[in-house]
């Protein structure tokens, strides 16, 4: 009977599940009337990743980078840090991720060829659609009000999930190493937090991470944009 008296992971948790989900309520009400605009901007990502125009590709990267900055400011800094002091240490990494997304977005050499309807591109697009459109509704699925839904651009998990999708679709093999580490670590830490809080949604993140890794390891590395010239034949 005293085994459960020994230390639990939850002993290190400073806040309750209720407080955690209400952080999203607060952010969503802070954005208020602009929430539909934020959702619409998220949907633009779904269109932007298919574009062959440089300007649109750069704008798409800019938008995703802006989403990392806004979720760092609105979620981490303004709302999460007061209940979890460790959150403020994540802010520089979110800003760095925004910078890396821009770097990849504006540098054609870090993009993969636009043959995105392959396995990696398809999984990436599904992930992006999930993050932008389906992830907010997981709150309803688990009995939370839609008010605490997590939207891309406001909530870090949704934004990081969208970035996994974006990276799978857009980034060259090398650029994956730039885009994935921070997103994967942010999601892993968040997954651990949700697991410790005992919330049933905790399983969403490991599944997304497993799908990403499985896709990367099971698909043949594609030639990067710079290597797309046909091999020279004698």
């Amino acid at each position, binding site marked *: 009977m005293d085994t459960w*008296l020994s230390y639990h992971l939850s002993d290190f948790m400073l*806040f*309750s599940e*209720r407080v955690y989900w*209400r952080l999203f309520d*607060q952010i969503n009400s802070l954005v208020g009337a602009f929430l539909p605009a934020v959702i619409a901007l998220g949907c633009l990502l779904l269109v932007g990743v298919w574009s062959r125009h440089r300007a649109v590709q750069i704008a798409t990267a800019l938008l995703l980078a802006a989403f990392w900055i806004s979720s760092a400011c609105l979620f981490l800094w303004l709302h*999460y840090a*007061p209940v979890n*002091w460790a959150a403020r240490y994540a802010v520089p990494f979110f800003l760095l991720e925004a910078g890396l997304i821009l770097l990849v977005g504006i540098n054609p050499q870090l993009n993969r060829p636009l043959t995105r309807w392959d396995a990696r591109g398809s999984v990436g697009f599904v992930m992006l659609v999930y993050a932008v459109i389906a992830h907010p509704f997981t709150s309803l699925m688990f009995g939370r009000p839609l008010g605490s839904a997590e939207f891309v651009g406001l909530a870090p998990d949704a934004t990081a999930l969208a970035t996994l999708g974006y990276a799978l679709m857009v980034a060259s093999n090398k650029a994956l190493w730039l885009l994935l580490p921070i997103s994967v670590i942010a999601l892993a830490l968040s997954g651990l937090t949700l697991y410790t809080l005992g919330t049933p949604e905790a399983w969403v993140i490991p599944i997304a991470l497993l799908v990403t890794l499985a896709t990367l390891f099971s698909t043949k590395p594609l030639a990067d944009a710079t290597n797309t010239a046909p091999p020279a034949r004698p």
Partner: protein
Amino acid sequence: MTDITPTLTRRHLLQQSLALAGASMLPLGGWADVAPAVRSRAIPSSGEAMPIVGLGTWITFNVGNDTTLLNESAAVMAAFFEAGGRMIDSSPMYGSSQNTLGFGLNKLGESTPVFSADKVWTSNANNGASQIETSEQRWGVPRFDLLQVHNLVNWESHLRLLRRMKAAGEVRYIGITTSESRRHAEFENVMHGQPLDFIQVSYNILNRDSENRILPLAMDKGIAVIANRPFQQRRLIHHLEGKPLPPWAQEFDATSWSQFLLKYVISHPAITCAIPATTRVDHVRENMACAAGPLPDATQRERMAAYVRDL
């Protein structure tokens, strides 16, 4: 430690406290009139009466900027004072809990009978004083009633600081805390070697490690004891939910598992105050009701512990 029985009115207790503490308490206000008489124990170093149930704030009061939850916490504090409670415990480690307390105290007005217990928790000896100052600002109190070295972190230098503060009248009582039984030996050494008004340890019906040496030593040395984690962070209550409360719990008016568990803790004669944490007004009332009713005696306590152990 002898009980100060609930025959005294709350106003009397506070007046007695004022006299004993050199008239250093907050002025009496509306709370003293609404609060029922509750069982109190004397703080050995001063004789000041302390209601035996207090309020913790770990997790429960870490609500950030959420106005709804800030107001809910203030309602818990109001119910706590209304039921005769005084001691509230917090720490710079508890996220925004200190700010929540400041919000609540400000909302409830200056006349609350709060006994403010906070901690110093920094590994850097030079940061202790500024951390305490920040904590006072967050609570909105001019000085704390009790300051404790949290989990013995850097206790030598922090206790030196607390002793200096006490001598200068900047804090009324000083103490040390731990929630880990494996640190009891070191804890005991500090109790032996340092002048302390309070100690704070984890103590509940299944975590009885402090019964062996710490609690008897506290009684010997005249140190007040705060019992934290009376419900083992609710795990005890979860574990017992759905299991039958023994009929003999009626003998000491325990009508729920939480009261059964809390009465076990506060009936130990060495305990000055137990500090269950809660987010709920009904729970704080239920907990405070333990301070008003009868408590189990030594034989009943053994029976209670055996019953829960065997479940």
